[in-house]
């Protein structure tokens, strides 16, 4: 996973720096995960936790640890990491620093399908209430938007055109969602508004497995595409001249980015800011645009920040939960600004 460019020793950016940063990040992420498992609105002592990890039993505490806290901790890590990578992909592809994973309307499409499920009595009339109704609906919405986006990308060369089309689709979905919201019952709206704010709460082990397997596979493919991604840094024309199959690459990148973002949105709702800010933080911390470093770097940083924000969201006014997207924006925006000011890096 740590494939760094081997540069001659005359150049200061030796192999050492990225590796040690990775090691530190990894340790911090692990620590964050442990903290997330050990804390919660229900007090479980550390020794009890330790026992329950080794030997789970039928108590509520064991259930809370294994079925609620562990999945949530893992969800925070994985969702944060995947979102960061998705954002990185889109920022490299569009060569635009203010692009995030939801720029192409993925979350809007997911939101629209979820609003159909939660705000209308469609699912009840069809008697299809399952524990995954909302998740599946969101996934369907994200997939539909993604299909449209990839289809358009195979025909449209200009990145700006694609961006605008994505934005317009987002607006369209949002418009329909607004209408549904206006016509819905108050209690239903409350639940829907909650979903829209995103949360790592309520993850089930099935979903974690899906995140690990499918997400892991996608992440692996993304990493293998690090070389053409680097070529893409100079723009499509140069990339083509270096031998990259632009059309295939374009569709593949968009597919990967939208899949990752769609999967996360389906399970956790739209989590704002992580995909936009973490790639910048990664770039600044690792001081490189080399995607072979940035992809794992962004993943680890995204995992860390998302877990941290989730910890804050649920601990600050425990047991009351604060909206996750508010915390991510609140925490992340000043950090990015201060990093920018310090380094005076132009993006």
């Amino acid at each position: 996973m740590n494939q760094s460019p081997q540069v001659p020793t005359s150049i200061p950016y030796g192999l050492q720096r990225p590796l040690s940063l990775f090691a530190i990040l990894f340790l911090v992420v692990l620590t964050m995960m442990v903290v997330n498992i050990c804390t919660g609105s229900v007090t479980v002592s550390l020794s009890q936790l330790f026992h329950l990890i080794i030997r789970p039993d039928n108590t509520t505490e064991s259930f809370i640890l294994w079925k609620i806290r562990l999945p949530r901790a893992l969800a925070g890590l994985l969702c944060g990491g995947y979102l960061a990578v998705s954002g990185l992909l889109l920022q490299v592809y569009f060569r635009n620093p203010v692009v995030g994973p939801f720029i192409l309307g993925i979350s809007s499409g997911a939101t629209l399908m979820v609003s159909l499920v939660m705000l209308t009595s469609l699912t009840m009339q069809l008697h299809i209430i399952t524990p995954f109704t909302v998740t599946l609906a969101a996934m369907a919405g994200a997939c539909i938007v993604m299909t449209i986006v990839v289809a358009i990308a195979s025909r449209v060369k200009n990145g700006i055109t694609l961006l605008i089309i994505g934005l317009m689709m987002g607006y369209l979905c949002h418009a329909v969602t607004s209408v549904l919201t206006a016509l819905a019952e108050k209690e239903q709206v409350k639940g829907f508004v909650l979903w829209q704010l995103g949360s790592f709460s309520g993850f089930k082990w099935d979903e974690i497995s899906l995140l690990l397997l499918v997400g892991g596979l996608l992440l692996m493919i993304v990493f293998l595409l690090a070389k053409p991604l680097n070529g893409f840094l100079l723009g499509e024309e140069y990339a083509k001249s270096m031998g990259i199959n632009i059309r295939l690459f374009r569709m593949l990148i968009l597919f990967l980015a939208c899949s990752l973002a769609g999967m996360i949105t389906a399970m956790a709702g739209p989590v704002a800011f992580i995909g936009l800010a973490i790639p910048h933080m990664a770039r600044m911390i690792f001081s490189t645009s080399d995607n072979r470093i940035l992809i794992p770097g962004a993943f680890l940083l995204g995992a860390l920040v998302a877990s941290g924000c989730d910890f804050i969201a649920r601990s600050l006014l425990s047991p009351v939960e604060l909206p996750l997207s508010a915390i991510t924006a609140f925490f992340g925006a000043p950090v990015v600004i201060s990093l920018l000011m310090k380094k005076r890096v132009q993006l």
Partner: protein
Amino acid sequence: MKDSNPNTQTAALTCHNLVVGYTDKPVISNVNISFKTGQFISLLGPNGAGKTTLLHTLSRHQAPLAGSIQLGRQSLEQLRQADLAKVMAVVLTDKITPPLFTAFQFVALGRYPHTGFLGRLTDIDKDVVQSALTAVHADDLGHRDFAELSDGERQKVLVARALAQEPKILLLDEPTAHLDLKHRLEVMAILRNLCRDKGITVIASLHDVDIAAKVSDRVALVKNGAITAWGSPEQILTSETVADLYDFRTACFSHHLGSIEIRSERYRGRAFVVAGMGKGASIYRMLAKRGYGISTGMLLSNDLDCYVAAGLGAKCVSQPPGSAFTEESRTLALREMEASDMVIEANYQTTGPYQENQDLIRRAAKMGKPVFSFRTASGRNETDGIIAVADSNKLFNAMEVHCP
């Protein structure tokens, strides 16, 4: 080593009846040119003539509307993108958002077609990158951040990146635009050396006709949807062809001098310059710059001043060397002098062929025309009606005073 004789090299890239342009809109038609290995080819032409379109078609960024392009023995279309990247590299005008790379890492991007999975650099790759940097005189830039380089340094690094691909053909779109003179000359020299030393075919679209004339093996003049001329610059680039290419009205490409002279608008009056031995050249230019009409004489036709005067469109009285000035010349010169508003003595000689010009000076003074001279104190004094000036600045101050 490399075959550096432009007339016996093999064809690297050949165009057959090529038509380039956009769907329904041909930009250049009937291109039938062969680019040989190791040649430096310049594409010259006004803005919008289609040089960039042609380059994009040659690099396969755009499809041709008709005709075909051969790369060596294969058709350009049939090559796989990855294979094409190993023989052809480009330097474009696209604006690059500088990534967070050192110059070395940036150039290393060019190894893309040659590296394996994940782009790991072997020792060979690193050597190629380093020698690419050396070839562009950017050895010491390797460890510096790409974003901090100046425009000139960046352009060199861009060329180095293209070189790292180890191409046989290098296509450059306006490589010297936005560069200061030092870097402009440096880049051109680097490219010329690449042709000589590495046998790379360089095809570049340029705007500097004078520089292009000095480094190119072949030039193609692109205008009005066609290649209006193709051949060596020595044959193709005459003042007429260049003036026609760029629609010059007040400029002239001097074929002999290999540079462009800007002609006078002639709104201020006429000056007669007694010159010779190259001393008149800068005076002519300054007069032209300030809007004076210029007449000059008598000159020998092998004198530099003659060429400069011709480039500037001045009225020049000259005759071939070898004999004394004829009566015809003297009469012509006198007539010109009389028709002028002032006389400037740029060259003062009491011996040699130009001593006869002293007669013109004397007559001018007697006629009461303002006469300005650069001669030193050992010459005549002011009572003779000649205004002495020490340098050209003082000359023009004096001109302002005496001839408003």
